[in-house]
């Protein structure tokens, strides 16, 4: 009896681990972007090495790229010169080493963790790596996917392999079902609140249970995406008919008899019943409420209906609240805000935009609030426009942009100002993450959109039901 993790791991052992040496693990898909690869290509050049499998390597640009249409398509220069240089370097590297690249104006370009699944490159049973911690996103398809550093990017480019010690396994069951108005983002924030930001360290989490099985692929990706925010190496969800229906529509999934063969194989991947996990916990899906962070890491999270905790003699906690400008014991609801960001690899997919639009429809963004909506990829952008979502956003007073990481990380000049409060659908509320001095409150697209309308932290159910 094996867990899904074990099955995928064993299939990819080129050389099994021993007491003296880690396993040599084969990597099926290597996704790359402009920020974490330049130094790896430099290493290849220095050592006279080639990319071993350009056909298993796929590049996009997302972090440093502008989101203003005139900068993406109109030839207006990037706001940050070093960002432009980094993008040019990726183009040169992909050309010199024969790697397929979704260049700035490519109609399929987007955030690396949105593009991989959208193209159908991310498939059950594969090993997927990227020099990016949110590679855990791809685990939503039952792929073993994890983030690596730039040195390891070099290893995979040169050998298509990594040296790895086997992580432990951690089953997180979410039973029952989510209440209406409660989303996958709330589920993963509640899980991180429960186990803490280092609760998953050293392990691969498998999310299980009826509330997980009921999620769509977009929602499963939101959950797996934030596995790293609990410190886990990776997150996994067993592939099922929901997964297969999604994949069947993607351009690069197997076709014809290859599809039939792949499907038969994918059905053997889920953990055997009775397989043992190193650790296991269960949460009741019915009890999860809309969640929001109040502090400076994703574990500092409470229900939108809750109050900021009170802690005595905890200088680190005091430092976080001082940064956030919040008081112990204050309700988080009604906290005035300045910025709302809808986007990122956590919540920048079509269903996320639909959720935000469903709240915004017929409303205006509160005066004094800036709302930025950034689709996760160009295909997401076009699909949203085909449904008229862009008009709902712009008519409400929000900005509608080209795809990219944007205000999730603020590397391209899309920043939150010093001291400003931002309700963001991204994944990190670290100090300065959205700009120097920016105060980030992480929440779902529903909560973010409702907060934009009222200019204060708001439970979307008040607007949807009222």
């Amino acid at each position, binding site marked *: 009896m094996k867990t899904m993790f074990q099955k995928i791991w064993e299939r990819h052992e080129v050389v099994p681990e021993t007491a003296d040496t880690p396993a040599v693990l084969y990597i099926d898909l290597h996704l790359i972007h402009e920020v974490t690869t330049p130094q790896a290509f430099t290493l290849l050049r220095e050592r006279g090495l080639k990319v*071993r499998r350009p056909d298993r390597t796929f590049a996009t640009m997302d972090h440093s790229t502008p989101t203003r249409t005139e900068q993406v398509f109109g030839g207006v220069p990037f706001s940050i010169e070093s960002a432009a240089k980094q993008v040019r370097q990726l183009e040169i590297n992909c050309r010199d080493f024969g790697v397929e690249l979704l260049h700035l104006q490519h109609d399929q370009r987007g955030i690396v963790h949105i593009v991989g699944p959208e193209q159908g490159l991310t498939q059950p049973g594969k090993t997927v790596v990227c020099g990016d911690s949110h590679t855990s996103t791809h685990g939503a398809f039952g792929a073993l996917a994890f983030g690596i550093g730039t040195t390891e990017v070099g290893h995979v480019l040169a050998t298509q392999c*990594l*040296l790895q010690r086997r992580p432990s396994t951690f089953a997180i069951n979410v039973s029952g079902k989510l209440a209406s108005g409660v989303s996958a983002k709330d589920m993963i924030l509640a899980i991180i609140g429960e186990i803490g930001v280092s609760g998953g360290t050293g392990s691969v989490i498998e999310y299980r249970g009826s509330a997980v099985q009921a999620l769509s692929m977009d929602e499963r990706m939101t959950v797996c995406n934030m596995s790293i925010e609990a410190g886990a190496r990776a997150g996994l969800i067993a592939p099922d008919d929901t997964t297969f229906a999604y994949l069947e529509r993607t351009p690069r999934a197997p076709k014809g008899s290859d599809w039939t063969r792949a499907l038969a194989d994918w059905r053997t991947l889920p953990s055997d019943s009775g397989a043992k996990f190193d650790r296991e916990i269960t949460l009741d899906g019915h009890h999860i409420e809309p969640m929001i962070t109040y502090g400076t890491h994703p574990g500092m999270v409470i229900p939108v209906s809750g109050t900021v905790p009170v802690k005595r003699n905890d200088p680190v906690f005091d*430092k976080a609240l001082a940064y956030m400008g919040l008081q112990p014991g204050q309700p988080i609801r009604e906290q005035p805000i300045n910025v709302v960001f809808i986007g990122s690899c956590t919540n920048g997919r079509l269903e996320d935009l639909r959720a935000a639009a469903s709240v915004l429809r017929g409303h205006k963004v509160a005066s004094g609030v800036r709302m930025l909506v950034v689709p996760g990829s160009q295909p997401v952008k076009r699909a949203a426009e085909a449904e008229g979502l862009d008009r709902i956003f712009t008519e409400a007073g929000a900005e509608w942009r080209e795809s990219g990481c944007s205000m999730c990380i603020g590397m391209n000049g899309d920043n939150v100002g010093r001291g400003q409060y931002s309700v963001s659908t991204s994944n990190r509320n670290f100090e300065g993450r959205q700009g120097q001095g920016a105060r980030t409150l992480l929440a779902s697209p529903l909560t973010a959109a409702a907060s934009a309308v009222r200019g204060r932290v708001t439970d979307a159910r008040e607007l949807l039901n009222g």
Partner: protein
Amino acid sequence: MEPIKQIRSRTAVLPYTNIDTDQIIPARFLTTTSRAGLGASLFADWRYDEQGTPKADFPLNQSATQGCRVLVAGRNIGCGSSREHAPWALLDYGFQAVISTEIADIFRNNSLKNGLLPVVVDEATATWLLANPGVEVTIDLESGTLGLPDGKKVPFPLEGFARYCLMNGVDELGFLLSRDAAISTYEKAHA
């Protein structure tokens, strides 16, 4: 990579838990295409005020920490982003080891690959080190111990292969490249 056998230094202490890699090196410094010079931006937003003036109350701006090569931090240092710029910045600044009760996975991996030693110790040792900045410690790779001023030697875990690579200055890429035949066999079997 230079072989490392022993590190002897006074400690600099950052008594915060969950120091994420965005604090170690903020994202706006990641548009570089090289790894040189990142030490100047290490902990930039904690180290400097809005005008770029060093903040007097930040430990790394105090004379007592100058020249320290060992950093002691609260639980779970290195969480968050996988940016290898974090260990690059720490090394460029002059650190050679990081001590904590917990060190996040990707940061630990990245550190090992660059010769920045991650040292995970028990709660009591960490509490004492956090409360006593500037003490002289000796990190010995051969014995896998952290030597404290009172002569006590605290063992810390270090994966055998990583230890071998660090002590002999071996880089893992060479090891992987030497497995070329096995990789080709695997690729043929799974084509």
